[in-house]
């Protein structure tokens, strides 16, 4: 079985978005959640950026995922504010992580983001208090389901659409 990561990403290495690097300078306790928020901002920007390259079925899915990310962004932002932190703001613009030239590269750009988000939320699971780590765990699972849905919509197969440990990939 070909792994989802292999199929979608091939040799592309993960990059660290500038917003993530900025969040990494924050205190350890909430760093994961702040990194996740920076990525949520990026995700909200990504769908409109790549949307033109998606076909109708994938575009519909991307719209649903985009709506989820807007909600997630607001929830994480509110949670950080409630914890006494200033949530990282969105950057004026974001570079798409892979050159998007067609439907496949557009989907892979979205999947890359979901995988980065999963890693950030997995780290944020170590956050205190319990309410914040529950939020992080919930959103880790949500991003996992996005990655699965994108895989199935694109590859039209269920095989390889799930991971034993989603933030680690296959």
């Amino acid at each position: 079985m070909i792994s989802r990561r292999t199929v979608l990403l091939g040799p592309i290495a993960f990059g660290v978005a500038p917003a993530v690097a900025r969040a990494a300078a924050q205190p350890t306790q909430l760093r994961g959640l702040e990194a996740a928020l920076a990525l949520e901002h990026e995700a909200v920007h990504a769908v409109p950026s790549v949307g033109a390259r998606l076909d109708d079925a994938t575009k519909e899915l991307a719209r649903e995922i985009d709506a989820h990310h807007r909600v997630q962004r607001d929830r994480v932002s509110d949670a950080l504010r409630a914890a006494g932190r200033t949530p990282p703001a969105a950057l004026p613009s974001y570079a798409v992580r892979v050159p998007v030239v067609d439907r496949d590269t557009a989907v892979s750009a979205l999947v890359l983001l979901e995988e980065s988000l999963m890693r950030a939320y997995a780290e944020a699971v170590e956050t205190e208090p319990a309410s914040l780590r529950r939020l992080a765990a919930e959103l880790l699972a949500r991003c996992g389901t996005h990655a699965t849905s994108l895989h199935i919509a694109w590859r039209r197969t269920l095989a390889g659409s799930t991971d034993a440990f989603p933030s680690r990939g296959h």
Partner: protein
Amino acid sequence: MWHSRRVVTTAVPALLLAAVGVGVLAGCTDGDGPTPDPSTAPSPQVHPDAGAIATARERELALLSAYDDAGTTGPGLADVADEARAHHELHLRAIEAVAARLTPALTFSPAAAPSGPSSALPSGPPSTTATATPATGAPTRTDAVALARRLLAAERTAADAGLLAVGDVESAQVRRLLAEVAASEAQHATALYLGLREAFIRRAPATPPGAAG
């Protein structure tokens, strides 16, 4: 085609659970009996997350049993069922490894998989198996849909339980493992949902309602 596999999964955290019990009991006195001398009383160093680990392990055993009981989900869903079952075995091993690291004094004793019907399978609508299954025993479309729906519900229930548990455990290692396992189970539920939609239902939303909480 996915075939039923009754795999006897080894190890029940009997000692782990016993240790949890000892830990609970160690903090209790009846008020009338002699007070144990702290210098001679056993100190059962039970990890505070032992209960959560044992419960997570039970969830994985129940899910494995559910997939074994389901036998076949029919064409179209076999891939995800195979994959999910393999993941649950990995989850089980990871949970047991964490338990061994956190509570090294404990050993696991071999035991059979949970007996009886899968506790992970929620009771679904009345089964139509008796009238829908032909004499050959081959699963009908109705059977396959019902099985996949029950597996989906079991995965979703396990994911929800795991996500809740993340808030209650102390060890960062256990938190992360429980969160990863729950996320994986949410993915299985999504894949089963989309597989069902593709194979049998269609016109359902592209992402399952209420997925992962």
